[in-house]
């Protein structure tokens, strides 16, 4: 059977974002980042470089972090996408978010959504990382303000807090990711 090509004009695409099914009408050349920000109003993921060189657009696709700026939206059909907007639930922050606030794990805050998503994903895969593991796992997120030391502290603290105090929050997001 021959492949049916769609585009280059706008085509309907079904996306599962933060557990919700969304249909958008877009050109195949659109990146996931531009669709999240412009079509779905999810502006938490930022456009820092557009080339996979900064990490401000980090999202979780099928349970693994990825750069939304180097991912075509059309390639995300049938996959589960989680953005920063799914990390907290109403007023209930994720332990990673609480730790970022407590330890000042940010400055201008522009990279922060990407950092938080990367940290949440790290702790889902490795609930009690060593400092070296945190540094390696977070090496794909640039913070030009240089908040790195506090980010490391925050992630390590969230790991301690998250496993002891409130496993429910992080557990819930894992579950929704796997189901989606």
């Amino acid at each position, binding site marked *: 059977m021959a*492949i049916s090509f769609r585009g280059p004009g706008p085509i309907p695409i079904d996306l599962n974002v933060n557990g919700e099914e969304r249909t958008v009408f877009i050109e195949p*050349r659109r990146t996931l980042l531009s669709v999240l920000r412009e079509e779905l109003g999810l502006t938490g993921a930022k456009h820092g470089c557009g*080339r996979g060189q900064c990490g401000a657009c980090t999202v979780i696709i099928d349970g693994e972090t*990825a750069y939304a700026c*180097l991912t*075509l939206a059309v*390639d995300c059909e049938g996959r589960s996408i989680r953005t920063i907007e799914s990390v907290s639930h109403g007023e209930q922050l994720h332990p990673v978010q609480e730790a970022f606030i407590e330890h000042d794990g940010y400055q201008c805050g522009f990279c922060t959504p990407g950092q938080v998503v990367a940290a949440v994903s790290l702790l889902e895969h490795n609930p009690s990382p060593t400092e070296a593991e945190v540094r390696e796992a977070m090496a794909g997120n640039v913070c030009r303000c240089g908040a790195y030391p506090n980010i490391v502290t925050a992630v390590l603290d969230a790991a301690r807090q998250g496993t002891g105090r409130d496993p429910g929050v992080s557990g819930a997001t894992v579950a929704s990711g796997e189901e989606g």
Partner: protein
Amino acid sequence: MKPFSHGNATSIEEALEALSGMSWPLAGGTDLLALMKEEVAAPERLVNLKTILGLDAIAERQSGNENEWHIGALTTLSALSQTPAFADHLGLRCLVQAAQESASPQLRHMATLGGNLVQRPRCWYFRNRHVPCWRKGGRRCFAFKGENKYHTILGGGPCYAVHPSDPAVALLALNASLLIAGAQGRRVVSLEDFYVMPRPDRQREDGYHPVTILEPNEILTAIVVPEPQANSRSVYVKRTERGAWDFALVSAAASLRLEDDVVKEARIALGGVAAIPWRANAVEEVLIGQPLSPELIEHAAGAAVAEAKPLEHNAYKVDLIKGALRQALQI
């Protein structure tokens, strides 16, 4: 990015039928989409390979008396680096090290091994749409007399951009071969023969001078790594400017089989020094049959750069590659 149409392939045959000069395969996209955004590449159609099932499997198979590992071309770098059968295997460890030291965690989740092997050079002239360099169909290499601190010291031109892949260097040391599917059937090519030095007679429709023998209507489907013999060990050593998320200034992969400290077999590959992953035959000749002593390692390191012809700004790579090779041989 120029508009294009997009189709999901569900089988290799389907994909092959659709591929052509301006209809390109898309896997992880971390290289291709960046090239398209820079307008250094502008395919009219993208054939998504990620929808082909089974191309991301890793399996051990018997081939004659030998065992070999089949790594599906869609295996991501992170999946590769988390494969215990490789990570815990002294003989194959260099592949995991190379995958782990590539790019960033996010990119390793996205990038496939096949795509990593066929990526285009990372040269800062090549990737600049305003520079009509030889590699993309222009008349000359701008790095040759220009800013060439990241460029080649071995093999010469006419393009002096280094091949950027880390895993390719490890795979060259592991004597890997590649399964290629094409309209005319399948073929197996050793990784060493897969890469070609810059040649004026090989040029794509869009002017690009390819780094590999892969034709536009072919797909790389698997990477085959022979099971190393007992007592083999391998190491990948990478030098960068930044602590992570950086392409290699130079790198070295060594795969050795020792018996009583005597080198029985050796395959040495160097990265960041030539337009292709560089097989260091001269080093292997120095090593084989000799006891692995500090003197021998020094001799081998010297042999690696005997033919080196640094450009104006990259003589430091001569020291750097010697050091990387020394380290690779010591472990």
